[in-house]
């Protein structure tokens, strides 16, 4: 297999030779993955993969308009490149005008590691996790879970000389333990599987299953609820996905307001800041745009553009919505590109401190099957999962049945009365796509549990 940087070069040469486009952008991603999966104290499906995606984006300029053709292929044989370029240029020539047209970026510097081999991974990266799991498999609890490690190395090259490269490591370990009718879950994100605390994760699971030795049936209703960081991450990630500027400007999202958008609207008094930042320590992600197709949040014309920190909510006030360059110009607002992480500031209290200061309330573990019910207010439904605990007089006193909830992230931020310390966490529901999150715990005085779920 020839190198990804060679593929980028060959694509640009072929595009120039064919001459069917005014500009060309090529995005190549080399991907190496390894995964373990287990159920009932036994390994199930495990594997390693190697793959490559090559996307050729051709741009044909006519007057002030631009026409785009984007074709992606995982074929690695260099003989496929001419066909890929031809398909992209043909698509551009026949495409209607792109609404997100903008000048593409140029450059004259080649990254020092442009031609270096891409890093790989294999199942032996899980050696430490597997060693701890082997002990766990011999225990009394039934363990289920998944560990994955992915290394995506992305190359962006343009016919205008821009060259950018970034390796994104993504990893996670999730363990679900069952004892009798009780179920508990812990999960961590990790870029490199160095020092994954699997033993302490198993100890935490045992503690939680111990809490469930006493069970309490509670009806639906509104409860004071402590949302730990994973649950806050899942809810805030959904909020982040709806913060597209164009939709809000056009009056068709929950971030729309009479005559404009909700930017400037205050959400609660805790002074929380929700932001994405490619340089966030421990949660680093691609510092430039690598878009293979356009959407309301991203534009292929912005490929290679620096991604900066964006405060979507600043000090409790909605501060920014997502705008690629063309949309930003259209609506006369700043460019705002979401990075592939989501963070929220918090307070100083640990979750255990928050539990100690709770007279009576619910402590959640994770949320599941979160879906939008009413887009006008961003009302979401979903379920609690793998551990709802009753807190009484500052202590966990038992496990409670699961619930279906109906809540809006915007309303939760309006009603939250306390935020704990912000911690790196693994979102449970959206962990397939979003593993890089840092969130506080939140205290909600009246979390709406719409009905009881019999699921355990």
């Amino acid at each position, binding site marked *: 297999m020839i190198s990804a940087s060679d593929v980028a070069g060959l694509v640009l040469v072929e595009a120039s030779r064919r001459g069917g486009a005014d500009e060309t952008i090529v995005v190549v991603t080399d991907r190496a993955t390894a995964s373990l999966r287990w159920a009932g104290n036994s390994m199930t499906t495990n594997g390693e993969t190697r793959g490559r995606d090559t996307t050729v984006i051709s741009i044909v300029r006519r007057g002030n308009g631009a026409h785009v053709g984007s074709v992606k292929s995982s074929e690695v044989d260099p003989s496929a490149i001419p066909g890929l370029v031809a398909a992209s240029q043909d698509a551009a020539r026949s495409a209607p005008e792109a609404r997100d047209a903008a000048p593409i970026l140029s450059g004259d510097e080649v990254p020092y590691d442009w031609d270096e081999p891409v890093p790989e991974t294999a199942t032996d990266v899980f050696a430490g996790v597997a060693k701890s799991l082997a002990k766990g498999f011999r225990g009394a609890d039934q363990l289920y879970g998944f560990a994955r490690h992915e290394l995506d190395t992305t190359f962006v090259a343009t016919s205008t000389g821009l060259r950018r490269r970034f390796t994104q490591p993504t990893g996670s370990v*999730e363990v679900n333990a069952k004892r009798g009718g009780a179920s508990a879950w812990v999960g961590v994100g990790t870029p490199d599987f160095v020092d994954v605390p699997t033993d302490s994760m198993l100890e935490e699971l045992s503690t939680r299953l111990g809490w469930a030795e006493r069970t309490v049936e509670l009806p639906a209703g509104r409860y004071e609820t402590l949302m730990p960081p994973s649950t806050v991450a899942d809810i805030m990630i959904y909020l982040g996905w709806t913060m597209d500027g164009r939709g809000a400007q056009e009056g068709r999202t929950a971030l*729309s307001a009479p005559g404009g958008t909700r930017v400037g609207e205050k959400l609660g008094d805790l002074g929380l800041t929700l932001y994405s930042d490619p340089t966030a320590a421990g949660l680093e992600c691609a510092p430039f745009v690598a878009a293979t197709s*356009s959407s309301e949040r991203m534009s292929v014309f912005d490929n290679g553009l620096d991604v900066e920190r964006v405060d979507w909510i600043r000090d409790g006030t909605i501060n920014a919505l997502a705008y690629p360059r063309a949309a930003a110009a259209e609506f006369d607002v700043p460019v705002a590109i979401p990075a592939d992480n989501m963070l929220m500031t918090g307070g100083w209290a640990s979750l255990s401190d928050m539990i100690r200061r709770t007279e009576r309330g619910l402590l959640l573990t994770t949320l599941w099957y979160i879906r939008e019910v*009413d*887009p006008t207010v961003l009302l979401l*439904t979903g379920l609690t*999962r793998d551990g709802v605990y009753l807190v009484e007089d500052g202590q966990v006193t038992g496990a409670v049945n699961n619930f279906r909830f109906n809540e809006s992230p915007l309303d939760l931020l309006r009603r939250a009365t306390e935020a704990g310390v912000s911690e790196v966490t693994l979102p449970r529901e959206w962990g397939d796509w979003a593993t890089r999150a840092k969130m506080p715990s939140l205290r909600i005085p009246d979390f709406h549990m719409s009905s009881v779920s*019999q*699921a355990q």
Partner: protein
Amino acid sequence: MCHYGGGVTARRRVDPDFLGLPRRELADAALSAATAAGASYADLRIQRITTEIVQLRDGELETSVITREVGLAVRVIVDGTWGFASHAELDPTVAAETARRAVRVATTLSPLNAERIELAPEPVYTDLTWVSDYLVDPFDVPAADKIAVLNEYSGRLLAADGVDHVSAVLQAVKEQSFYADTFGSSTTQQRVRLQPTFDAVAVDAAAGTFETMRTLAPPTARGWEYVAGDEVWDWSGELAELPSLLAEKTKAPSVVAGPTDLVIDPTNLWLTIHESIGHATEYDRAIGYEAAYAGTSFATPDKLGVMKYGSPVMNVTADRTVDFGLATIGFDDEGVRAQKWDLVRDGVFVGYQLDRVFAPRLGEARSNGCSYADSPHHVPIQRMANVSLQPAQDDTTTEDLIAKVEDGVYVVGDKSWSIDMQRYNFQFTGQRFFRIRDGRLDGQLRDVAYQAVTTDFWGAMEAVGGPSTWRLGGAFNCGKAQPGQVAAVSHGCPSALFRGINVLNTREESGRQE
């Protein structure tokens, strides 16, 4: 009941360029290398998946991208343990090395495996070909032509009073696969599918709010003939009526929450079937393989043949042979021929969806052919067949069902869905809700969701419509497994009448009182 189907259709042939791949050489290289390295079993899958997504916003092009994924996957059993590896390069040397990597994975993890893998027997099928039934390959149609149709349909909606924005999305997929295993089976298959949707938005700028309504056309395993023109789907009728329905919805009264009789249209009920029956009768879920992710099922093996799933009018089949079904195929990803079988008969739970590993664990002699992988880089897992509710024998119409309701709601079109991890508690919304008064429709309602426990809901099904009400709906991207995989699946059903289902007012659920 078990019907062995999945014949070869004659309308189309497998594309020559896929047949031109070195399938035999790759199979020989991978399977012999796996066997030589110690595998007791191996299979090779070459998969090429072409996907096109076109999205227009208010008639302007937002996204148009074609993606082609190609690769080979080798799955092995070594000492009763699975190993898997894949690679993007279709080269015999790479195939052999990939097979050896799969063996290494199995060997490394064998000490952690407590359940020895055994495969159910299946007849050997040598060099068989299957192609789905479609007329026009969507990938033979230039993107510009597709964009033009989406633009024209968008324009019809935008021209109507009260429609402020229109989102048009078309997804097209062509799957081509070659499968070979060490038992001697080899199959080559090709199928296509399409999902066109149009979403209209009415904005009340002064109030800062909006309302939406989407077309009801389901995804289907047909070709471009489904989208262009009215021969397969009545696009003219659907696009013509949508603006007035949306306008009526914006002014509709808010529903009164509480137990309500529902007549549910197939355009909504398919999704309830998918979540509360389709996933609940997956055997891998029932025995815990998805416990940490997609979840388990209340329908555990001890309840098979015993549990009352619903009322006596409830009959549900799983079927990988139904015409234009999204999960219809000739052979699954373990070389098992497509079949049709019962899941619920006369309201009683009688069947599971299985693959070759789970069939013997359930005590079945043969897999019913539900293995599928969505990518050459993913392990095949047990996925859903087309799971469908059967109609009544007589020709009960939707109007007949509505006539049985004094005060209720007729639910049309799917929208929001959510169900718990054991498939008990679910909540669904829809596109359109019509009040039923004294057996007749009486205008639309808004802010409606229905919430129930699976067996209570199906137990409250009083009547189903006849064959004339039966429609095939479906999902294009049903998620399951880690690493995450998506699968397309259809669900057929008639209209059906349910008594006393808990209806929520979503405005009240959000805490708004006005």
